[in-house]
């Protein structure tokens, strides 16, 4: 068994009377691609925000990269990368300036940052566009830059919140290539998605229903367990029982 980078036990978060996240427990190990599925309102985003140190849990245990989410959020933030469903680069900065900025605030030394960003720009094939404002680029490119920026400081875990929303199939494919590559380098990938074909690419998948984890296993095991032909069917079976919708 590889090193555990995310560990939760009965993690719960309430908003008033509403229990957004209901005693979830799971573990994610190093280099794993962990799919985090669920219908809208199932509690995915809340759980993710807790793990990123943006939101304090109500009860339960959670450790990310070995740090406690109650007390050591600043340490967590140093060791994670994050890319949200909303586009999260600055539209009125250029590609190069965005990479410099985010690399800079993660404390990458200046010389190293320079090398890294040039290397990244050429790897993404953006040499021509490096000094264009990000706002003028197509969405698919922005998402790729966004992901690369999120892992520029070599975090232990990268959280991806619906990273491929609104992107064409070819770009999605390329995007997943980048995810595999990152995982190969030892970066744990924690990803939420709405695309069930993407769930098949994950090492393990958890499906949240009404704030709790309804199923957690490899895609293959899940298919067998529910006697389904694909993940779509697995998801529909589980989500149909949900009480809260949008």
């Amino acid at each position, binding site marked *: 068994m590889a090193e555990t980078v995310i560990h939760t036990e009965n993690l719960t978060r309430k908003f008033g009377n509403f229990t957004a996240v209901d005693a979830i427990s799971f573990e994610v190990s190093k280099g794993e691609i962990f799919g985090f599925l669920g219908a809208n309102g199932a509690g995915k985003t809340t759980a993710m925000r807790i793990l*990123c*140190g*943006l*939101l*304090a849990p109500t009860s339960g245990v959670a450790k990310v990269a070995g740090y406690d989410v109650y007390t050591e*959020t*600043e340490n967590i*933030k*140093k060791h*994670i990368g*994050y890319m*949200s469903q*909303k*586009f*999260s*680069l*600055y*539209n*009125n*900065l250029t590609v190069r*300036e965005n990479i*410099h*900025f*985010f690399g*800079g*605030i*993660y*404390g990458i030394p200046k010389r190293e940052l320079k090398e890294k960003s040039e290397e990244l720009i050429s790897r993404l094939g953006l040499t021509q566009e490096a000094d264009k*404002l990000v706002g003028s680029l197509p969405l698919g490119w922005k998402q790729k830059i966004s992901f690369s920026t999120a892992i520029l400081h070599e975090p232990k875990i990268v*959280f991806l919140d619906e990273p491929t929303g609104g992107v064409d199939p070819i770009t999605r494919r390329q995007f997943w290539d980048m995810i595999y590559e990152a995982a190969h380098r030892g970066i744990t990938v924690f990803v939420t998605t709405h695309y069930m074909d993407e769930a098949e690419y994950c090492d393990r998948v958890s499906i949240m229903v009404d704030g709790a984890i309804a199923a957690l296993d490899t895609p293959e095991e899940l298919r067998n367990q529910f006697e389904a032909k694909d993940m779509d069917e697995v998801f529909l079976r589980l989500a149909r029982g949900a009480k809260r919708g949008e």
Partner: protein
Amino acid sequence: MNTLKYLLQKEFKQIFRNPTILRLIFMMPVIQLILIPLAADYEIKQINISVVDQDHSPYSNRLTQKLLSTGYFQLAEYGNSYQESLKAVGEGDSDIILTIPPDFEKQLIKEDGAKLHLAADAVNGIKAGLGTAYASQIIADFNREVREEWVQFPRFSPLPLVEITSAGWYNPHISYYLFMVPGILAILVTMVGSFLAALNIVAEKEAGTIEQINVTPVKKWQFILGKLLPFWVLGMVSITLGMVVSFIVYSILPVGSFFTIYVFSAVYLLGVLGIGLLVSTFADTQQQATLFAFFFMMIFILLGGLYTPIESMPNWAQWLTKINPPAYFIEVIRAVYIKGSTFKDLLPDFGMMIAFAIGFNWLAVRNYRKRSA
């Protein structure tokens, strides 16, 4: 320290790339400083008068001539129907009506006393008050002339008199520009500091990029400082620009020292930025932020003594002005500009500004939760 450097770099790049902010910074001082002082001339120079002369005597004629010769009044109408003149007032063509009743001259000479009627459009109370006061004074002068023609007074007045002389210091030519310009400089700094800073932070909330910053190791104070410092610089730029404009357009220079102005501006801006930060913590959209900023700006300016003196306010409002930062700053800038007040003169105000700077920023930081509970 390095993180802050990156944040500042980013902020300045974005500001210089945003034409709206740049236009705001450069055009606001120019437009405000040119428009408002030119408009804010409260001196009532010309009052349109309708004379309803039902007497048509040499005396009524003389009185009319005397009124018009002073320069305060301009003849809007000369007739003999009060109703006609009333209509002119309704339409705004005339401000004041003098009615000289029939037999005015006869009564004055034969019966030792006569009556005149003044009616003023009092929608604008100040103008009405001044107009009737001027007219009454001219009538009293006329009265004295007439009296002197008929009565021989002894050489020495038997009435003891207190002779009053008055002088206005610092502004002998009664220039309203001199009064308004420094006040507007103060308002300018306030707007740049609070409004722009609030808008900027909220714009980042709206775009979602603030989430991205929140998951990075950037600390609360670093983020806030990274946001506020650029606007502090912009605030200092805008007051400098404002002073240049007021010199070019009105040839107004501070009597006191630039040093005093800059020291006060520097500390005051910190407080104002705190207000901007506070507004940004309450607002989720730029539209909300604008509304909040506008709301508070309105209160601040109206209760800041820019238009009406603070001591004329009722007690509760005066108490409010004590916690109104622009009220202090307007007073300070005016004092330094017009009277040449020194830093030492204004020490109590300086203390208050430091208190504001600390107070508002403390409130804002407490409210700004990087980690929403």
